[in-house]
C-alpha cells in the first residue's frame, strides 16, 4: 500500500488545508450541479412525454425522488461521520456530521412538501398517516433533533458529541423509510428505479431522474463545503491562519 494516500488524507484533514481545498472545490461543484440540474429539468419538463395515468403532474418526480434519495443518503453519511468523530475524535468528521444535518433536513423538507403537492391531485389528499409518509416525517424530526441538540450546549464540542449519538441511533429509521413501501400496505407507490434488474420506468423519464440525482449530489458537496468552511473559521478563530484571512478580506 502506497504511503502517500494516508499522508495526503492526514494533511487534507488539517483545518487550514481543508478550508483552502473546500474553497477551490465548492464553485466547481456548484457549477456542475447547476449545469446537470438544468439539463435534467429540460429533459424532465420539456422532452419527457406526459404520463398516461398522471398527465403532467408526475413531473414532480424529477425533484421529489432525487430529494428523497438525498435525504437518506445524507443521513447515512452523517451517521458514519458521527461515528468516526466519536471513535477517533477527528474534528473534521465532527464538522461534516453536524453540517450535513441542515442540508439533509432541507432535502427531506422538500421531499415532504413536493410529495404533498403531488398527493393532492393524485390521491385527493395533502397528507395521510401511512408508513412511507410517516417514516419520512420521522426522518425530518431526527434531523431537527440532531440540529437542536448540537446547538443546545454551551460547549460546542459537547453538543456535537450528544448530537452524534442521536445521529447514530436514528440510522435505524433509514431502512424503515426505504422498505416501508414493501413492508406495509401504503398509498405511496413502490420503487420504480432499481439498481438490480430493469427499472419500471421509460428511458425518456429515467435519464432526467438520474441526471438530477447526480446534480443533487454535487449540490450537496457545494453546500457542505461552504458550511464546513464557515464552521472551521468559527472554531479556529483564535489561530493565526484565520486572523490572516480576516485581515485579507477586511482590506478587499
Amino acid at each position, binding site marked *: 500500500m502506497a504511503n502517500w494516500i494516508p499522508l495526503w488524507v492526514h494533511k487534507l484533514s488539517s483545518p487550514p488545508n481543508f478550508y483552502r481545498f473546500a474553497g477551490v472545490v465548492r464553485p466547481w461543484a*456548484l457549477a456542475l450541479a447547476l449545469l446537470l440540474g438544468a439539463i435534467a429539468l429540460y429533459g424532465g*419538463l*420539456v422532452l419527457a412525454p*406526459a404520463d398516461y395515468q398522471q*398527465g*403532467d*403532474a408526475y*413531473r*414532480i418526480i424529477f*425533484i*421529489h425522488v432525487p*430529494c428523497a434519495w438525498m435525504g437518506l443518503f445524507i443521513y447515512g453519511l452523517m451517521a458514519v461521520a458521527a461515528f468516526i468523530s466519536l471513535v477517533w475524535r477527528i474534528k473534521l468528521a465532527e464538522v461534516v456530521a453536524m*453540517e450535513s444535518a*441542515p*442540508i439533509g433536513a*432541507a432535502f427531506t*423538507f*422538500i421531499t415532504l*412538501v*413536493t410529495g404533498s*403537492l*403531488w398527493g*393532492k*391531485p393524485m390521491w385527493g389528499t395533502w397528507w395521510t398517516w401511512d408508513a412511507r409518509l410517516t417514516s419520512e416525517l420521522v426522518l425530518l424530526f431526527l434531523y431537527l433533533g440532531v440540529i437542536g441538540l448540537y446547538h443546545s450546549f454551551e460547549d460546542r464540542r459537547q453538543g456535537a458529541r450528544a448530537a452524534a449519538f442521536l445521529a447514530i441511533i436514528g440510522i435505524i429509521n433509514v431502512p424503515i423509510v426505504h422498505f416501508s413501501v414493501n413492508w406495509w400496505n401504503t398509498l405511496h407507490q413502490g420503487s420504480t428505479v432499481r439498481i438490480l434488474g430493469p427499472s419500471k420506468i421509460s428511458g425518456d423519464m429515467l435519464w432526467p431522474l438520474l441526471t438530477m440525482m447526480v446534480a443533487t449530489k454535487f*449540490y450537496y458537496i*457545494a*453546500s457542505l463545503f*461552504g*458550511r464546513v*468552511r*464557515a464552521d472551521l*473559521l*468559527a472554531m479556529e*478563530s483564535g489561530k493565526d491562519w*484565520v*486572523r490572516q*484571512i*480576516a*485581515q485579507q*478580506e*477586511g482590506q478587499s
Partner: protein
Amino acid sequence: MTPFSWEHFLAMGGYAAYVWPAFAVFFLVLAADYVSPNLRRRRNLRELRTRMARQTARQQRNPSSP
C-alpha cells in the same frame, strides 16, 4: 410530437398549481441553504476583525500588558 409552446408548457396539462409550487419550493429552499453559511462566515470574520482591532488598540495604550 407537437411543437413547443410556452402556454402549453406553463399550463402543465392543468396541473400548473401543483407542479410549479413544487419546483419553487425546491429552488427557494436550496438557495437559502446555499447562502446561509456565506452570511455566517462573513459575520464571523467581521466580529473577529473588531476583536483584533480592539486588541491592537489596547496594546498601543499600555504596551506591557498582553
